[in-house]
């Protein structure tokens, strides 16, 4: 009995060692840093987070395939690392920024990555490439490029614009006897009058949340600030604000508190995006702020009841306001000349007018270039998208939102303090003070 036990133990120990040495041998041949293989191809390392259930997964696999068919791309091979979720992706990129090498093409997952990467000196200055190719540069407006500029140098190539507005449920509006405005409610007073009417009819007026980053609530709050006169609008268009105790922000926080208490679902506090979206799909909530990427969901039978697409209307925020921010652009982490060239070629390909339209079609991402010719088939097959393209030109004021403009930790403070605000455990003023303190931590 004892010797049997011993044999078994020894056997497993030996096996363990063997497996380990096997694993070690198996890997040593696979050198990742091989520059170009025999056929003279350029190998680009890419970390891709548009995988799995990501909204743009199909679009990006299309893009990589198509690129290899182009003149510049035919000699390029991609070496992919997949990292699902932007959260995990950003963690890895930050690790690479601080103690490793960045991939040759650095997709931008937000999180102020552009600034961190630029300051680390591990991404290429793309200004010369823009200067060299005036036609390419003309695709972008100044705001978009400025947004991707650090210390006077352009590091990121923005691939889209982010806009958001209000989706509303036409049936519920009718039920409450409200005539939905053509473009937007003229003022927040009118907006809240409509909310009261909805409430009287037993309908929850708005969708809100607080978990993760409090996305929906952030859109409401940005709108409240961004449409509050010139001062508010300027504040909401400022990168990295540090003073949240301005009249407009405090007023907005007060309104948010009221909205949590009176106009939204019980699970909004502490709630995540998905159940809130489902409330809207199920016709339990009348108004829901979000962007064009949500449109495909309306006709997905998994998510929304049949025919829901036709019930959805679109309007701007009260006072003809619309959130619009340039997106943080994709960067080049390659260090060798031929790789940098190939990576830049890919970024150019990613931003051709054709591919911007393809992205719009496949993901709902808004083109970064203004005045592109959108093919009629697209607008006909997707009337809501057509409406989005049209209504955005009617916006009189545009402003940013916290995920694009605020410090990372301040967004987090926003999300964790929202419930306290909602339950009245802190006053709107205290809420803003917390945000101020949090933003100031970045100045230490």
């Amino acid at each position: 009995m004892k010797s049997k036990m011993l044999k078994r133990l020894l056997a497993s120990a030996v096996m363990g060692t063997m497996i380990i040495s096997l694993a070690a041998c198996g890997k040593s041949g696979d050198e990742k840093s091989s520059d170009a293989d025999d056929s003279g191809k350029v190998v680009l390392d890419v970390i891709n987070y548009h995988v799995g259930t990501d909204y743009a997964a199909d679009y990006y696999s299309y893009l990589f395939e198509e690129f290899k068919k182009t003149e510049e791309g035919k000699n390029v091979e991609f070496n992919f690392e997949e990292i699902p979720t932007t959260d995990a992706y950003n963690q890895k990129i930050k690790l690479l920024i601080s103690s490793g090498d960045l991939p040759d093409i650095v997709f931008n997952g937000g999180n102020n990555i552009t600034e961190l990467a630029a300051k680390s000196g591990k991404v290429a200055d793309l200004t010369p490439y823009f200067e060299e190719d005036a036609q390419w540069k003309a695709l972008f407006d100044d705001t978009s490029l400025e947004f991707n500029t650090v210390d006077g140098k352009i590091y990121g190539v923005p691939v889209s614009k982010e806009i958001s507005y209000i989706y509303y449920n036409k049936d519920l509006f009718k039920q409450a006897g409200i005539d939905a405005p053509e473009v937007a409610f003229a003022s927040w007073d009118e907006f809240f009058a409509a909310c009261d009417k909805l409430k009287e009819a037993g309908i929850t007026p708005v969708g809100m949340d607080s978990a993760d980053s409090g996305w929906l609530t952030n859109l409401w709050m940005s709108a409240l600030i961004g449409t509050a006169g010139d001062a508010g609008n300027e504040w909401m268009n400022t990168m990295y604000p540090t003073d949240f105790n301005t009249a407009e922000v405090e007023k907005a926080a007060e309104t948010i508190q009221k909205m949590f208490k009176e106009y939204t679902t019980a699970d909004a506090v502490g709630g995540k995006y998905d159940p809130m979206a489902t409330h809207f799909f199920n016709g339990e909530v009348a108004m829901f702020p979000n962007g064009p990427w949500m449109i495909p969901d309306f006709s997905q039978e998994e998510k929304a009841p049949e025919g829901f697409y036709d019930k959805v209307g679109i309007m701007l925020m009260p006072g003809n306001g619309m959130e619009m921010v340039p997106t943080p652009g994709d960067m080049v982490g390659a260090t060798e000349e031929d790789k940098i060239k190939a990576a830049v070629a890919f970024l150019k390909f990613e931003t051709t007018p054709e591919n911007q339209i393809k992205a719009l079609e496949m993901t709902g991402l808004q083109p970064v270039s203004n005045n592109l010719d959108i093919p009629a088939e697209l607008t006909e097959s997707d009337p809501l998208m057509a409406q989005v393209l049209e209504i955005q030109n009617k916006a009189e004021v545009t402003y940013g939102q916290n995920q694009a403009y605020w410090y990372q930790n301040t967004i987090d403070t926003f999300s964790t303090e929202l419930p306290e605000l909602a339950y009245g455990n802190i006053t709107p003023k205290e809420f803003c003070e917390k945000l101020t303190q949090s933003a100031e931590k970045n100045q230490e």
Partner: protein
Amino acid sequence: MKVKNKGFWIVLFTMPCMILFAIVYAAPIVTVIYTSLCDYTTFSGPEFSGLKNFMTIFGDAEFLTAIKNTLVWVVLQSTFHVSLGLVMALVLRRKPAGWKFVRTAYMIPNIIPTAATGVMFTLLLNPTFGVVKPFLETLGIEVLQVPNLFGNSKYAFWTVTLTWMLYSGFNTIIFLAEMGAIDKDIYEAARVDGAKPWQIDRYITLPLMRNIFGTCVTLASVAMVSQFDIIYMTTKGGPGSTTLNLPIYLYKAATLENNYGKANAVGAVQIIIGLVLVLFVQYLFREKGEKKEGR
């Protein structure tokens, strides 16, 4: 004990362990301690700055809350949670009907990935469509507003605590193994002497569990000092700082403020708190045990 070549065997038997340790932990321990004294961010290398980071964190009310929450969880976990595992082991030891099933079932929560557990709890406790409302209704409690267990700071701390406190299968297994090692003759003798079951547990089993109880307490406290995943998946330390603990605070300093120096200062505090706890628990549980063995 008298052993030939004692020194040789000590080295040979502890070396492999220590080498593996050195590979994985040596550099990190040094790095954490050193960089906690530095200005160090995502994009700039460490530069010595003395105790600045420690002054910063100890001047931050949230950090003190994080320490307080961490310690409360340590106390709860090392008392209630560990005892629960012990009670379960005592029950299962006598092999009541279905004990095999219970034993395995009680372990299952430990192998469900945290990502899924987090989603599960947030959905199950959702105030509009979760289990809370029907549960209260079954109990006959009328409430105007269904408590929002994760969202309201009144309940959040206890809700988060409950996501792990009752799942003590880990300890049950450890205790069961230890009980298996007890000399069977002692039990037999006690039974012959007419001792009642609870007397056997009270006067024979429990005293013999002293050592392993100490171990379980050590492990439980240490696990609480570094508890992260489930908090991150459910509340991220909120509402406010109700469920903020040291690892979450550290995570936020590192990934949201990009301040590695500060994060590692928190790490250093975490290590020190952990070490003090380990030594304290070992001291608590050693005294008598050591004397009794009296080798």
